[in-house]
C-alpha cells in the first residue's frame, strides 16, 4: 500500500473528493482565524481552502510524501509546507488556532500520538479536528471490494481499517484529552464522466484498493473491473457516487 504517488494520480482518485469536502470540513471545525495547520495535506485540497479564508501566510501544512509536499507548495503559493510526520510535528506548543487533518487518520501508524500532537500545537481554546471516510459510506472503494470479493473471499476491505466509524474517532479525541468533543457527517457526491474516469485511477496502485488491484494477475484485474462496472449498472452516461465522511472536533 502506498501514497507515494504523483499528486495528479492521487487527485484523480481521492483528491477529487476534497474539493467539496475541504470547505465543509473547515466549516465543521468552526475555525474563525489563522494560523491554521493542515496535517497530512496531500496535494493541498484543504490547504488551498484554508489559504483562501485566512491568507496563505497564516497556513502551515505537513505531509510525509515529497511529491505531495511539492504539489501542495505549487497549489498554495505562500503557505508554509514541509515534510514532517503527523506524530512528531515540528512546531512549538500552542502555535495554531486550529489543527485539522482530512482523510489521513486511517493511515497513520500511531494515531494516539498524532492526536496528542494536534492538541499540543493548538493554543488553549483552539480546535483540533479530523475526518475520514465512513466504513460503509464510501461508494467508490466499497464497490471495489464488493467486486473483488466475488473472486477472492479473503480480499481485504477498507471497512475494516481503523477510524472508519464514529465511536473510534470520538474515543481517540477523548483519549487525547480534547474537550467538548463533537461529531458530524459530511455527505459528498462526486461526478464521473464515464466508467473509465472512475476506473483508471485504481491502476495507479494508490491506497489499499489500488495496491490490491495492481498485485493481481491481468485476468483477475479485468474480471474485477467488469464486476465493478456491472455493480454500477454498466453506466453509459455521466454518473455520481456518494461518499459519507465522518468528522470529529474538540477544544484544546
Amino acid at each position: 500500500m502506498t501514497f507515494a504517488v504523483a499528486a495528479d494520480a492521487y487527485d484523480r482518485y481521492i483528491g477529487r473528493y476534497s474539493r467539496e469536502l475541504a470547505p465543509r470540513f473547515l466549516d465543521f471545525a468552526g475555525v474563525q482565524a489563522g494560523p491554521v495547520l493542515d496535517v497530512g495535506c496531500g496535494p493541498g485540497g484543504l490547504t488551498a481552502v484554508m489559504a483562501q479564508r485566512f491568507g496563505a501566510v497564516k497556513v502551515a501544512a505537513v505531509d510525509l510524501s515529497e511529491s505531495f509536499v511539492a504539489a501542495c507548495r505549487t497549489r498554495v503559493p505562500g503557505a508554509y509546507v514541509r515534510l514532517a510526520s503527523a506524530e512528531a510535528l515540528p512546531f512549538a506548543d500552542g502555535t495554531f488556532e486550529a489543527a485539522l487533518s482530512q482523510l489521513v487518520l486511517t493511515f497513520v501508524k500511531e494515531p494516539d500520538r498524532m492526536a496528542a500532537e494536534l492538541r499540543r500545537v493548538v493554543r488553549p481554546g483552539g480546535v483540533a479536528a479530523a475526518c475520514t471516510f465512513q466504513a460503509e459510506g464510501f461508494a467508490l472503494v466499497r464497490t471495489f471490494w464488493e467486486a473483488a470479493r466475488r473472486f477472492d473471499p479473503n480480499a481485504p476491505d477498507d471497512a475494516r481499517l481503523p477510524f472508519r466509524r464514529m465511536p473510534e474517532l470520538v474515543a481517540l479525541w477523548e483519549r487525547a484529552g480534547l474537550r467538548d468533543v463533537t461529531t458530524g457527517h459530511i455527505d459528498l457526491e462526486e461526478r464521473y464522466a464515464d466508467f473509465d474516469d472512475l476506473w483508471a485511477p485504481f491502476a495507479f496502485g494508490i491506497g489499499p484498493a489500488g495496491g490490491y488491484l495492481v498485485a493481481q494477475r491481468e485476468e483477475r484485474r479485468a474480471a474485477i473491473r467488469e464486476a465493478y462496472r456491472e455493480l454500477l449498472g454498466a453506466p453509459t452516461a455521466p454518473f455520481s457516487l456518494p461518499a459519507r465522511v465522518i468528522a470529529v472536533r474538540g477544544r484544546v
Partner: protein
Amino acid sequence: MALAPELKEILACPRCKGDLEFREELREIRCHACRLVFRIEDDIPVMLLDEARPLGDRPPGRSGEGGGAP
C-alpha cells in the same frame, strides 16, 4: 523562496519541540538540544526524525542514503 519569516518563528524541533537554528546558506536547520540536523531540500525543510542526521557528521553523499549506520 526563502523560508517565510513569520513561520520561522513557529518552527520547532519535531523531537524536543525546542528552538532551531536556521543555516539557510548550508540548507540546514539545526537543533542543538537534540544535536540533529534537518536538511532543506528544494526549499522544503525535511523535518523528519528518520531523515535527520547527527550534528557534527558530514552530510551523506548522494548515493549514501540509508548507508550511514555507525
